[in-house]
């Protein structure tokens, strides 16, 4: 598998990746992980808000919105 380790914020619209690592301050990191963004979880970039930020993600079967700055602290691999 040709995996590429990069921030979630770089995922193209409609593309899916698998979380490898969540970085950033503990408080935010833990919150993101508690919402299901743990390593191994599949995450899809669903859409970007009309003003360019935040973004909408699909993770563990539901929709979650985070700012690009938070998305940048989540690392993923894509097939």
């Amino acid at each position, binding site marked *: 598998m040709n995996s590429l380790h990069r921030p979630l914020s770089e995922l193209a619209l409609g593309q899916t990746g698998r979380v490898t690592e969540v970085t950033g301050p*503990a408080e935010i990191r833990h919150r993101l992980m508690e919402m299901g963004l743990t390593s191994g979880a599949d995450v899809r970039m669903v859409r970007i808000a009309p*003003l360019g930020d935040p973004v909408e993600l699909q993770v563990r079967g539901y929709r979650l*919105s985070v700012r690009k700055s938070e998305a940048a602290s989540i690392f993923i691999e894509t097939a």
Partner: protein
Amino acid sequence: MADAASIRARPIRIAIAGNPNSGKTTVFNALTGLRQKVANYPGVTVEKREARLAGTDITLLDLPGTYSLSARSPDEQIARDIIQGRVEGVARPDGILVVIDASNLERNLYLATQILDFGAPVVIACNMMDVALARGMHVDCDKLAAELHTHVIPLVASAGEGIESLRGALAHLECRCDRARPWALSSHFEDAVQRVAGVIRPTHVLPDHAVRAGALLWLMDFLSAEAGGRASAERFLKRLPLQAADLIQAMASDLAAHEPDAASAAIEARYTWITQIAQRVVTDTPGRRAATRTDRIDRILTHRVFGLVIFAAVMFVLFLSIFSWAEPLMSLLESAQKGLAGAVKARMADGPLRSLITDGMLAGVGAVVGFFPQICILFFCLAVLEDTGYMARAAFLMDRLMSRVGLHGKSFIPLLSSYACAIPGILATRTIENRRDRFTTILVAPLMSCSARLPVYLIIIGAIFGDRSLLKAAVMFGLYALGTVTALAMALVFKKTLFAGPRPPFIMELPPYHMPRPWALVRTMWDRSKLFLTNAGTTIFAVCIVIWAMSYFPRLSEADASAEAKTRLVRLDPAHDADAREVILAAERLRHSYIGRLGHLIEPAIKPLGFDWRLGIGILSSFLAREVFVGAMGITFAVGDPDLHADALRLQLATATWPDGHRVLTPIAGISLLVFYVLACQCVSTLAVVRKETGSWRWSAFMFTYMTVLAYACSLGVYQIGWRWLG
């Protein structure tokens, strides 16, 4: 089961926990019916709903919807404190009903398993089985029950399916306190949990079966370095004997040194376990897996162009509804108040008691009830936005804009509502989880020009600009713009100073769209509006009485009236000019009252702004509510009822002079007065609500101070510069 029931000495209490949007409230309503008690938890504005499980003596307590028990927001804090029996006046529940969303199983199980850790009897209601099925997922509740070692009842709460079995399960709660945690912590972390539990157990701060879970959560809080978690961890330490507190703090620091990311590892371990459970209990069925209804709606509602256009339209309707749909009801209430006051006046002789009833109590009730239609409409609109799922989209659309001034997308609606009235606006900030964001929004909300300022703007603009319509419209626009820009600027200032700190994250679920149930909307509206009446209403009423007393006492007898008033009185024909006589006397009395004296007293302070003592009285009496300015000016300038004599009042204002013959309300002084009204916090009701919402008079005092200083400085600037410049 009869045995178990007879052993219980007190009525059984069951708390209902669950994620937001899991249908928790629907389940609660279905189980309890109409008779619910709604209040706030002590010291916070988190709603507390309690009701009897229909047909039993079991009490159900609806906890705030949360994603986790990690105590980062007030809602989570409350939910967790109640489960642990740490809220004053709320007994520890005997069992917990966890509502989970079958269509969103994994994330819902995160909270459910955290609660299971506590070892109390738990029943899980697996709600929205129909939604899950429509998405191609069948959840085997028997298997799930076996995995979790607890009752799991399948449910479609919106259709009432499964409610009876759930009722049965709740009536026969049993403790399964022997659940072992089936997922492993790292050896360091496990060791720390054991040691901390060992210290907590003998203190009896937590019930025995909850000690291990409590120790784990406490360590997780301690390890999350930022304010929310740390504060909660420290709060818990205060409940322990000093020695024990020091001991476990040392243990936690030790763990943090050895394994700084232990908490992340614990979250991952739990989710790994949950993922495995989900794989075992969920079977795929041939359902619609492609675009869901929500997706199709979102393609329009969050569209680059249509999304924003529709959003603007929705906000316009929201604004219009608070601003003008409440109007007929408000004027009805107002005329009812006036009618009642008139009836009292007709039946009672003049005196302090009559004035207390008509000008104090009835006016006070009026001040409270006058807001009521607006509050009801706002709460109804908010309930619609929340219930349908659009509220989250509104924040999603507006976050970029609000984040420019350091705020959250969720601050948009409270600020917009404040154009109608700051009070519903401040109440609407409850949806903002982050305290710093919420308090910033509360502090700047009263800078948005509310509808009560409008009559003041109209009368002053009319007095200084006569009939130059275009100029008047431009000035009016300028006033609204000034308020808005100042609010946003102050938000930025507060976020940089008072509430400085790392930018709070924007992590928000976008729930599926959902047809609102009208009955539930009305109920939410009514519950919240009622809380407003009982909480803020009483304070507003009390302050109105105080202000009445200040403008009524000390009483002036006719003999003590000023020489000028006496000569005017003498000229009147006693037979025909009874009204005119009253008007002159009323002006004299107001001047003589405490508030009138205060007006004189502050004249030196407000003279640099271009105001004389009469305008001072207007400003002071505005604290009751800004629209009182017009009435007070009517009395001060002795024109009688300003509603009937608006033109006369405008003329009086326009021609009033200083003792040296100069006009008081020159255009510059008028603009200075307008600027003052835009920026000053002249509303006791707002201050009362701020106190209720923040839990402290300190924030009300701070808001009052900063806004008054700001208003004073800006008016001073306008008048002094304008006066020198224009002469």
